[in-house]
């Protein structure tokens, strides 16, 4: 996407933040694809090779957790803590924005804050139920009858959450420039002033 020379860029997401996002996103799609091939008879029939798919699913989950830990350990933890603090606090402008009153927003708008909170909870619950599914096969004392039902419900919730996320970041004309923040790290100042006015007013341009 070419930008006019006089359009200023504001740095939005650091390398650590982007790495965390893409580790999570890529693992999600591999886990979703392999999981559906294990779960839906029509896909299981098409793809076959169940032991291989199962290994892909389990080892991707492990790699995902290890990669998240590595990004946190080796990355800019101060920045991640600042993100966490920002997401923790909802101010009156956030509550107004959620009521569609158009209040100015910070670096994360209230919807993005909710998305991060729900995604973190889903990640935790996927790990918990996935552990019971995996370990329950090895030790039947840990085989919880509802673990699969909950794992499935989490999949449905995540699936629709990701669909909405993809729509806003790839399709919706007004918001899709946000993709630049998570791929290249910067966004146009004019876009930031419109969508994240409180943050844009304080942010320094990236020269």
């Amino acid at each position: 996407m070419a930008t006019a020379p006089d359009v200023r860029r504001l740095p939005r997401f650091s390398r650590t933040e982007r790495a965390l996002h893409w580790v999570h996103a890529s693992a999600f799609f591999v886990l979703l694809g392999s999981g559906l091939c294990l779960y839906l008879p029509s896909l299981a029939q098409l793809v076959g090779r169940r032991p291989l798919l199962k290994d892909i699913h389990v080892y991707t989950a492990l790699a995902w957790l290890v990669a998240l830990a590595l990004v946190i350990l080796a990355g800019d933890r101060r920045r991640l803590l600042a993100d966490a603090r920002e997401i923790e606090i909802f101010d009156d402008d956030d509550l107004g924005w959620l009521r569609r009153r158009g209040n100015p927003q910070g670096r994360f708008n209230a919807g993005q804050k909710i998305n991060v909170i729900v995604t973190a909870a889903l990640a935790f619950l996927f790990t918990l139920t996935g552990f019971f599914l995996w370990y329950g096969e090895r030790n039947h004392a840990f085989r919880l009858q509802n673990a699969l039902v909950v794992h499935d419900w989490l999949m449905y919730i995540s699936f629709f959450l990701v669909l909405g996320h993809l729509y806003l970041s790839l399709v919706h004309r007004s918001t899709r420039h946000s993709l630049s923040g998570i791929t290249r790290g910067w966004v146009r100042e004019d876009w930031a002033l419109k969508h994240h006015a409180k943050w844009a007013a304080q942010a320094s341009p990236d020269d």
Partner: protein
Amino acid sequence: MPDPLPSSEHRYGRRGFLLLVAGGASSLLWAGPISSFLSPLTSAGSQLVGNLFPVGGWRIYTISGSMPIFDPASWRLEVGGLVKRPRTLTYDQLTALPRAEQTSTFHCVTGWTVKNVHWTGVRFQQLFDLVQPLPSATAVRFVSMERPYDDSLTLEQLRLPDAMLALELDHQPLSRPHGAPARVILPEMYGYKGVKWLTKMEFVAKQPRGFWEQHGYDQNAWVGRSNGYGS
């Protein structure tokens, strides 16, 4: 203690995360009853959307997208192959054979389990006595009315004490989703070995690979010891 916030700011993030985690983790206790409660709503749609939803703890799978219809008047069970006395049984002849009952756990290879399932049916030894397998027979190929679904079990496996040709589930004749009028049950193995909507039993010298085995699934589908589970 965190610093007090201005009245216009609220600490909602961590609280929201913990509430979601607590709700999600507690659903390990209540998800089953809710899932069963919703099953009348989801069962009708389950065939349309690729069998996504559990039906009363069960998930009904088909390979062709539609379930065969059982007609008691025309249905036959053909029992032949390497036997001395091939037979073709009507539904009435099959149900007239001595009955056995059992309560066992049903495991699906996709990870779900239904406990305390009550089956009524016929032990395979009854059918063996009827047709008298030849010494060269080592396995039985089971063929479903749902083509091309077939699978096989060895005679040794079919002589396990809880192997059964099931005709009833929880004291009711098998429903269409559960494989009416007859399905194979071997609780020690995953459900894909238990052919539903059975119409033919063929005694063979060498155990063939069934539908799912041709798609990479294990021939001997022991629960916890096959298909990537256990060692």
